[in-house]
Every structure is written in C-alpha cells, then in structure tokens.
C-alpha cells in the first residue's frame, strides 16, 4: 500500500482510493482515476515534476503532490 507518487517509472499500480478533497478529488475521478482501475507511470518531466501516467488508454499528466493523494497497491 502506498501512493501513486512512489510508483516507479514503467510500473503499473491498482488504485485503492482517493484521499484528496473538493475539486481536486472530483477532477482526479472525472479523468478516470477511480477505485479499482490500473495506472501506469510513463515518465517524469525534465525538471522532476509533474509526471505522466497512462490511465484508461490515454495519457494524463499530474503533479507529484496530486499523485500523493492517490492510494495504490
């Protein structure tokens, strides 16, 4: 159990829950990161943040601070 932030480049993880609140929570779920789906970390931006992930067949970028609120295993 950890957060999406800790998932290494190239690895895939299963989402267990979203701990963010308010609009950020809604946005994460609207973009398809919901409980039970799988997320693959593709790469990290040249300056170390944000990160790019593949979810539901498309590419999504999010900041590490946002990835921290996504619990995965």
């Amino acid at each position, binding site marked *: 159990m950890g957060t999406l932030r800790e998932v290494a480049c190239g690895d895939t993880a299963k989402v267990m829950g979203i701990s963010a609140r308010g609009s950020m929570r809604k946005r994460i*779920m*609207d973009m398809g990161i919901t409980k039970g789906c799988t997320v693959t970390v593709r790469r990290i931006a040249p300056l170390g943040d944000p990160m790019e992930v593949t979810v539901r067949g498309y590419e999504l*970028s999010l900041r590490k601070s946002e990835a921290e609120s996504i619990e995965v295993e």
Partner: protein
Amino acid sequence: MIRAALAGNPNCGKTTLFNKLTGSSQRVGNWPGVTIDRKEGRIKGADAILVDLPGIYSLSPYSPEEIVSRDFLLDESPDVIVNIVDATNMERNLYLTSQILDVGIPTVVALNMMDAVRKDGGEIDTVKLSSALGCRVVGMSALKGEGIEELIAAITEAAASGKVPEPLRLSEAAEASASRISEVLRGKVPDGQIRWYSVKALERDPLALERTGDLEGEILHIVEEMERETDDDSDSVVASDRYSAVSRAAASSTGKRGASKGRTTSDRIDRIVTDRWLGLPIFAGVMFLVYYISISTIGSWGTDWMNDVFFGEWIIPGMRAWLEGASVDPVLTAFIVDGLIAGFGAVIGFLPQMLVLFVLLVILEDCGYMARIAFVMDRVFRRFGLSGKSFIPVLIGTGCGVPGIMASRTIESERDRRITAMTTTFIPCSAKLPVIALIAGALFGGSALVALASYLVGIAAILMSGIILKKWKSLAGAPSEFIMELPAYHMPGAVTVFRSTLEKTWAFVRKAGTFILLACGLVWFLSTFSWNMVLVEDVNTSMLADMGRALSWMFVPLGWGGDWQFTVGTLTGLLAKENVVGTFGVLFGFSEVSEAGEEIWTMVAAMLTPIAGFSFLLFNLLCAPCFAAIGAMRRELGTWKATGAAVLYQCGLAYAVSLIVFQIGSLAIYGTFGVWTAVSLAVAALLVYLVVSNDPFRMSARRSGEVAC
C-alpha cells in the same frame, strides 16, 4: 427552429465538427460572467441553431467551463444534445456521455475520428454501441467530412421524436439510493431532470444540493446509509460505476484491441520531446522559432510594411495631399490624417504580426505540443502562481505586448490566464527599447547593463505579481490543479488553423479596436490643440503639455518630477512607447530626433542624475502599457472594471518600484535621507509583506464575514 447543443471533451475534434456543421454562419459571443467564447451558428441544410459548449470532461460544478455547460443544459433545455466522442479514446469520452444521458434531453452521439480507428485496423460497431448507450450513434470523421449528412439527419430526427434516452445504470446500491432520493425530490425539481438531480445529489454535488433546499438533510441521510453499506464515499462509488458502465458499453462495440497506433506514435514522440535531457533544449528551440518567425522576421516585416509603407507612404501622404488639394480646412485635415487614420493604423498595423503569431500558436495547440509545454515548464512557473503556458505570452511580449497578451488565451485556468494577461507587459517590448537606449546613452555611457537590468526588473515584476495577485480575492482560490490530458499528437487541419486564426484576430479588432481608436484620438486631440482650441505648432503649448506640468509634482519623489517634459513624455507613451523619445525631441526643440534620441543626450544628462534617469526608465517600463495593449487586456479580462484595476495595479507597482530605486539609490550614492526615503522603505517593506504573507488582503476574514451576513 431546433436548438441543439454541441458537447464534448477538449481535443476530440469539436471545433472542426462545429465548423463543418455550421459553415460560415457563426456568431461568437461570451458566456455570461466569464471570458469563455460562446459560439453559435445555423446547421447547414437544417432549420437548427447549434450552440457550441466549452470543451469539458465532466459536468462537475468546479470549473467555469463546466458550470456554464451545466447551466445551459439544465436551464435553457436545448431540443437535442450532440455529444461528440473521440472513437480512439472511448472510455473517458463516454464518461461525459453517461452524465449527459442523465439530463433528460434527446441525445445524438457523434462518434468522431472513425478514420483513425480504421487506419489502426480497429472497428467499432455503432449499432451495438447505440443499443448499449440507449441513444443514436453516428460514426463519422469531422476532419475528412465523413458522416456529416447522416449526423445532421440524426439531429433533426432526434429533436422531432423528442425521445429522451435511458440513463446508464449504476451499481445496485447506487441505483437504490438514487431512486430513494428521487422520491424525496419529486415535485421539487422539473420531472425530466429528476434523474440528474438524484444522482448529482447522491454524489454530494454542492450546486445540485443547493437547489434541493430544506430537503438536504433527508437526502444526505440516504447518502450516508449507502456509504456505510458500500464502505466508500458516494462520489467515488458513482464515478466508478459510471466508468464501469461506459467501459462495458465500449467493450460491447469493439473487439479486444491493443494500444492504437496513434497512441504508440505519440508515445515515441513524447519519449524525445519530454526527455530528461532533450526536453528543455527542444522547448527552447520551438520557442526560438515562434519568436523568430513572429517577432524577428515574417511577422514584423508584415507589421513594418503596414506601418511604414501602407500607412506611412501610401495612405497618410495620399490622404493628406488629396485633402489639401481639395482645400479642406487644415484642422479637419489634421484630424482625419493624424488623428483618425493614425488611430486606425495603431489597430491594423498589429494585424500582420498577430496573424503570424496566431497561426503558430494554433498549430502548436492543435498538434498537441502546447500541452507538453505546460508539462515541461510547470515546475518553474507554478511557484509564482502562473501556468507553465505563461511562458509564451511573456516571450512574445518581449517583441510586442499586444500579441503577447492575446497569447494568454491558450491558458486553460481562468485565474492563471487573467494574471498572465495583467503582467505580460512588464517585460520590455521592442517599442520600449528606444527609451532604454536613451537613458543608457545619455546617463550610463551606453552600458548594456541598463538593458539587462530592464529585462531582469521586468521578469521580477511578473513573478512577484504572480505571487501577490493570486492572493487577491477574484484571483484567489484553491491552487489550480494540474491534472491535464496529454492529447495524442496529430497533424493540424489547415481549415481549422485558418479559421481559428481569423477568429482570434477578428476578436482583437472587435474588442480592442474601438478603444484604441478613441484613446489615440483623445491623446492626439490633447497634444494638438491649446485650451482655446487653436491648432498648436508643437506639443509644448498643447493641452497635454499643461496637463504634464500640472501632474509633474507627483513624480518629484521619483526623481524626475522637476522637469515637466518627462511627465509629458510618459503621457504620450500611452499612444505607443516609442513616442516617448520622439516627444522629448519636440519638447527640447528638435523637429525630429533619431530613434535613441542622440541629439538630446546632453540635455537629458544635464537634467537627471543617473539614478533619477533609471527611475524614469523603470516607471515607463512598468506603468500602464500603450492603449493598444490596454485594449488587448480588456479583451482578455472581459470587463472595463477588471481592466481598470489591472492598469491601476501596473501604475501602482511602477510608482513603488521607481520610488524605492530612486530613494534608496540616492541614500546609497549621495547619502540623502528625507521623508521620502522613509516612505520608500515603508513601501519596500509592504511589498515584501505582500509577497511573504499568506493572506495579506485578509481574504479569509472577508470570506467568513460574507458567510456571517
């Protein structure tokens, strides 16, 4: 007349489809209260109006785009919704569809990019998808123009039948709770929208709960029961259920397929473009190209030709000769030629450069690279409350602030866009270079350090303003998220690029043109006439000069208020910043001076100390930009009130910075200490406080105060 609404995700070809459906019959306006374009047009060959909703991923109540779309669907009940879905990215696109199906309005799904699916060897059975979604699905390609006729027929059919689609079913627990909530809501909301309100209330959607009034407690009780039963938050349950439902629907219509070819190509490009080592150099290269083409070469050739040849050699002398030949009154001639036509020139002269810039920006946006710019640069800019995309307006702003401000359009977050539009002109534009050259030449022996310092102050002002302004009420709010789609790369369509470019350019002319014309006319009038309405020989005896004399005391603390010429120069700078030097020439008795004003260097040196000169320079760099740029700002900020506030902020910051530089500089160099030295120290302390403090405007106190009353 049928009223149809076009809804869909960003980057799914919505603009292209809208253009295909409506042709040239488009009208562009604004949605109420926000600076988001509202486009509508007549559908070709049908008795129908199509309203283009902003590109959205969900009907959540958070972003202005989403709120505008929801309100339109719920309150203005269009006859039919055309929901465009990207066939290469079905799951996420159909998530929006699942919410649209709840609204209780006949819906047609336009399944776009079918050509790309076929090219990848894929296949989608629209009949199966249609039965899974419970609404008509038309396979098509907006880019290739396939399936447009069929779509138009489906739209009119759906509107005529008035058949409301069946909502997608959520899990047992969610459906049971939603139907209990709908019993509570019956009679309280319109019957057709009861499904929408029940499910949104189940998600604890604040805007939906607001409309349920005193029933909120009863509803939340049902929601909590479901949460205990499912051991999960209700919004998470509903989002997961929606995604399960649409992925079932998508799976029923497609065979199992691996990643599409378009996606793997995109991934390969991204591996290079956002690479740890190559990412930044490639970004710098692309930025250089944009700058080089729009500012250094093609764009400025066009604008120079427009100003120097078209207006300078043809229109103005031609018109003058013609009017004089017809022995028209000299005052009227001067008004037409120097006031009116020069004012038009100020608007139209920018157009070639703006066209070139917009073509480049639209291509970058359309092909998908713009999203990567935000991805690569986000880390740098977000510290200052700006978006990664704020870099482009600032870069373009070094050439000209007007297209620079217009380039802020590409920033999605309204807050970031407004802050960027307000601060872009702090960076010295090319018209400010003569002022820099004048001060550097007259007072600093032509040192290049003056120019360097000007750019550094400009950048510092932008970054500092980002920090300060995001704490201000209308610009504050939760830090904007950066959860952004990185769309697959694709070749931009020529027609879309062409149309978007014209649309953006025309918007500038329409929104900014009148103001620029009027403001230029006013300053021309003030600088050409004396108080008894006599045409003056030179600016020296005009009303503007008197105003400069009357106002110059304000600038005494900045070190250059003793000589009124500097105030007048600053005022004429509002017309165009390069006017500052020319005005000095006239005021010092030269009919014409070179661009950097070499003729007047000794006179300026006699009047100003170097530190006072630098303070004058800084004030002119940071204060209100030229009228053309203010007009562009008005276009981006939406209202005159916001524009006025922005100009006041710019002038205030310019005053503060010049005051601090002059007073503390004088203290350091000459050891002069006075009341103003103390004031400047206080102002410096205030600026530091505004930057450092978390809530300098006491916004949290005001917010809680608002709640109390």
